[in-house]
């Protein structure tokens, strides 16, 4: 009961941070996303699970229109980002994205990876941009690596710089697409630690990841996708202990085995 009240308080006054409604996506004749409805409330961390090819990345990439939805709508704090005439670049600076392969700019050092958008998009002066970059890098524990180029950083450090690059723009929501899948097992922890810290700072996050233990411990909700649909959407306890769908159970059985 108290849980419901909390939800009401957050959701009641403000529109959800991110809301997908009736989202479809086809590549040619292949339907990859079908009738996706998903709401991410402010401050929530929502995990997305699903087999390879179930459409997780495509759904995430629709959220900042790296992929153009075929039908349906996406609302960012109540604003339809697919509406005609929206300034997509202005929308995107409010949505942080972290990629499986980091995608740091290899020709720029860590600091300038972070400052590029601060300078060119937010039009901050050099000093202010540097200051913000330093505090973002500090947040991910890499202020002392600001002068290093991506090639001089470990995978875990690169991903943390990528997170710093995104949070420096102070986005209202962060999208993570398998942020730890490309990492050696011993480097996964440091990235998860940073994400946990973001969660403590009430960052709104939509996370595609197979780190089950992390999902179970930190997620507000877990969503399971199969064949381009969301077939399960539940709090982690319920999701992992008594999922309602057979496909979810099969998936969990395979992963916990």
């Amino acid at each position: 009961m108290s849980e419901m009240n909390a939800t009401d308080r957050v959701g009641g006054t403000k529109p959800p941070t991110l809301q997908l409604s009736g989202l479809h996506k086809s590549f040619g004749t292949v339907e990859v996303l079908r009738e996706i409805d998903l709401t991410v409330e402010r401050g929530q961390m929502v995990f997305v699970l699903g087999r390879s090819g179930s459409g997780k990345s495509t759904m995430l990439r629709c959220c900042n229109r790296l992929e153009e939805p075929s039908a349906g709508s996406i609302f960012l704090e109540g604003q339809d980002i697919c509406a005609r005439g929206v300034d997509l670049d202005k929308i995107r600076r409010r949505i942080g994205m972290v990629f499986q392969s980091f995608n740091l700019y290899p020709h720029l050092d860590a600091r300038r990876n972070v400052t590029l958008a601060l300078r060119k998009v937010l039009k901050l002066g050099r000093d202010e941009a540097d200051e913000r970059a330093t505090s973002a890098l500090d947040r991910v524990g890499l202020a002392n690596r600001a002068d290093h180029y991506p090639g001089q950083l470990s995978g875990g450090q690169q991903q943390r710089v990528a997170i710093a690059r995104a949070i420096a723009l102070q986005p209202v929501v962060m999208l993570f697409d398998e942020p730890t899948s490309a990492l050696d097992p011993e480097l996964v922890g440091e990235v998860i630690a940073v994400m946990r810290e973001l969660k403590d700072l009430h960052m709104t996050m939509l996370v595609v990841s197979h780190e089950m233990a992390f999902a179970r411990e930190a997620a507000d909700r877990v969503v399971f996708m199969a064949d381009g649909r969301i077939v399960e959407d539940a709090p982690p306890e319920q999701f992992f202990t008594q999922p309602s769908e057979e496909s979810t159970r099969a998936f969990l059985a395979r992963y916990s085995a």
Partner: protein
Amino acid sequence: MDQLILQFFNVEVMAKAWPLLLRGLGMTALLCLAVIPLGLLGGLLAALASTSQSRWLRWPTVALIDLFRALPPLVLLIFVYSGLPFTGLQLPPFLAVVIAFLLNNSAYYGEIIRAGLISVPAGQSEAARSTGLTQSQTLIHVVLPQALRNVLPDLISNSVEVVKMTSLASVVSLAELLYSADMARSVTYNASPITLAALIYLILLWPVVRLMSRFQRKIAI
């Protein structure tokens, strides 16, 4: 043997031809200064058009690049200088040379830069666009620096070709280095000015060529 040295390595003749060759070298430099930067610019535009989303931009550009890469530059030059006058357009030699070489080199630079653009992973522009950078900001600050760096040896190599190509301008009587040397030869009845010109080309280009070999060896490792 002495005869040979007198004919090809006559220092006295070389000294006399030197001022003329120096002026020729100036013209060669001027041609390079026009053709290399403008060719790079034309090549960049060609590369962007040939990788564009729009097929109406892509196809004609690819066709033009193919055309100007296949045509021998000398044929292009003669066409521009001696062919166009039949349409009533007589260009001064310098302009004719610059135009002919620009067509050729925009195509070559274009093909090189296109390869560079393609070599940059799509994730780079996706990351940039996801932070709100515009398409042109992404190109300028993220994609192009990496693209150009990836094909730098090819760009330098083609620029060496441009320097060599300028000697073709002698056929339209533009007084660049080779033409000047040949003039000096016909006046002195001695081949030494040609030798001197060859030496100048060698001194100019050999270090570049050497450096590139080392560079490419490093990349190969």
